[in-house]
């Protein structure tokens, strides 16, 4: 059995959406070439980066991801001609929105990684993991909870106020 620390340190959890044709294959290539990288990403395979619905990313953050990575083919190389452009357009809008929500831009990343760029998988994953590690846990589920509490208190105070006014 492997060695391990008894005190488990926090490490980020990153959900990745990789397109079948380029980035997923690149990650396979990294495997076949035994290119070691940080063990923090969990890849979900989609046929094209164009399939990545903004809701997937929001849902991942909401359920506790510390970062979300999207990987697609280089511009001009999408297996479906231009799905990656569509993805890029959505991504730019979405990043504005998540930033407004207090999610740091480094937590949401879009990368073009072609099927031959096994090493780029390593570079991108390691870089993202180190940046997100520095940022610390996002903890959106807990934040949601405290926001809910705040909301309740807020609503409560309004109610009280209303009651008061009516008297």
């Amino acid at each position, binding site marked *: *059995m*492997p*060695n*391990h620390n008894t005190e*488990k340190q926090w*490490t980020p*959890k990153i*959900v990745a959406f990789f397109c079948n*044709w*380029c980035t997923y*294959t690149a*990650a*396979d290539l*990294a*495997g*076949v070439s*035994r*290119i*070691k*990288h*940080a*063990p923090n990403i*969990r*890849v*979900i*395979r*989609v*046929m*094209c980066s*164009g*399939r*990545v*619905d*903004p*809701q*997937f990313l929001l*849902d*991942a953050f909401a*359920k*506790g*991801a510390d970062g979300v990575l999207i990987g697609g083919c280089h511009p*001009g*190389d*999408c*297996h*479906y*001609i*231009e*799905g990656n452009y*569509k*993805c890029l357009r*959505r991504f730019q809008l979405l990043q504005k929105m998540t930033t407004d929500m207090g999610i740091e831009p480094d937590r949401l990343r879009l990368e073009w990684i*072609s*099927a*031959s*760029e096994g090493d780029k998988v*390593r570079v991108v994953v390691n870089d993202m993991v180190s940046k997100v590690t520095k940022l610390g846990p996002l903890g959106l589920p807990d934040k949601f909870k405290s926001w809910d509490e705040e909301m309740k208190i807020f609503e409560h105070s309004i109610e009280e106020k209303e009651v008061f006014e009516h008297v």
Partner: protein
Amino acid sequence: MEKKNGQIRIGFYICHCGSNIASMVDVAKVSEYAASLPNVVVSKDYKYMCSDPGQEMIINDIKENNLTRVVVAACSPFLHENTFRNATFQGGLNQFYFQMVNTREHNAWVHLEAMATTEKALDLVRAAIYRVAEHKPLERKKVPIHPDVLVLGGGIAGIHSALTLANAGKKVYLVEREPTIGGHMAMFDKTFPTLDCAACILTPKMSAVKNHPNIVLWTYAEIVGLDGFVGSYKAKIKHKPRYIIEELCVGCNDCIEACVYKEARFLDEFNQGLSKRKPVYMPFPQATPQIVLIDPETCIHFKSAKCSQTCVTSCERNAVDLQQQPRFEEIEVGTVIVATGFKPVDARKVPYYGYGNFPGVYTALEVERLINASGPTQGEVVLRDGSHPKTIGIVHCVGSRDKHTNQWCSRVCCLYSVKLAHLLKEHTGADIYNFYIDMRTPGKMMEEFYNRIAEEGMKFIRGRVADIYPDRDDPQRKRLIVKAEDTLIQEIIKIPVDMVVLSTGLEPREDAQEVRRMLNITCSTEGFYIERHPKLAPVNTFTDGIFLAGCCQGPKDIPDTVAQAGAAAAEVLALIDKGYIEIEPNTAYINEEECSGCKSCVPLCPYTAISYIEEKKKAFINEALCKGCGTCVAACPSGSIIQNLFEDEEIFSEIEGILNFRNIQREMSYA
């Protein structure tokens, strides 16, 4: 995730893959953990899940435990997804009630720490187990396969593929960009390791192509577009104007004789510029087809329109047509073999070897022509200054194994250098020095070949050449000094030679990226096309129905090229003879009830598969045109487009599965 009350009964399996997975992932732990997840009825680990007993296990478990879903954690789905889908099917379930977890390529092979790797495996397994519960039964659509085949490139690879297919009774379109087929091999005099004459083995195959009733040979033609998918591709071919009516020309060469240029004045491409040709010319005596062409760049008519057009009048068959325009043609084929070959590295990329500066420096391909009996000098090795070389230096690995040019070993240069050393010796009797980094002679009979030639009195110097410059001490003889470090005796040596041969490496064609985009296949950063799997699918691409043969996939010698060309032809035959192809059901459809008719999906589809039905005020997806990228699904504001195999619920449950790790941290008690 809730238990679905016994309706969903999942069998989970994790593969050790020998020790590939098991050495990094605690497989027993994973299977124990999986057993605790909702809906999991069976959970096992096994040495090799892809083996017969592994598959049998799945089949039996489905039957004995009434399983309704299967999850296997093993290698990449690119490798064995189909194997396990098939086992799921054999067990009596719809094959899409299966989900695969990539715990080898994406996990065991890329991480260093077993605990983190195991933890990742748990997350991925949970995701798959949540996901598979959402899976729907699907059917693979069968589409008929058009039996005609398109072969791109008429080098030895394309020739061999085309002949194999044609002999099996299939109709083949062989499209070659140059005016003749033959590729690089047609330029060689002899070939290693057998030293048999290249023309003797190639020309009969070239004429067989020309005369085969099942082969449509189009030379001086190019593919300019490819649409469709496996089984029914539409290829657009451009016929470049030769200014000769191909059907009428018999290759008598009267027009060449009659050309207003009495002397040949322009560089002859086939002879690497070592001889001259006229504006109207035959590429080389055995060119196939035997049809001349006119080069508008050099022909007076095209430059000034003031030519007396003696070629036109000389042709008894009226085959010369100076008004010819490019012609486009569309063909339907079911499969494509890409055999577009390589190009030698431009020797000027290594400026200190002086190619283009010093007349005594030649590329290997030029030397192939120089020693060729049908070459510019009929096989007599005369230098550009008219002299005969007495000392020759052959420089290996030019533009290979070097981070300034190309990193890879071009595989054939050591061997063709040895071949050229032998042939040059035979033709000139000169002293020959080979400068090499390492001698690389893999392959059957290759080391023996090298040993045999080495005994002919060649000198082999181990060391990369650092510089080549004129011998200032002997300006009369115009010799060149080859300077290298002999790494065996660790001394800098300077050898004066009359002729230098640069053994240039092999690299992708200049337009490899363009062609790749057109065909929707992948290539490495440098530009060689990528095979689907280096070991298990070496001639397939990631695009179904498109196959690779020869040096367009990577440098290789003629025996390997021909083997690969045969393999590609066999893969094509396997597809055609089945008569149909089953395609992944990952297409999208509209849930009409939800569709608000906003039309935002319509312009998104690059295949125009989505239309708007005015009467119903709903969008409609033509399944035959949909390729299943899912872009419209992600964009639909009302969530009313559904992509089979990648439904929203499936992906959401995968996300939930990945992130539902909080409760396992307690369970993961490594003591």
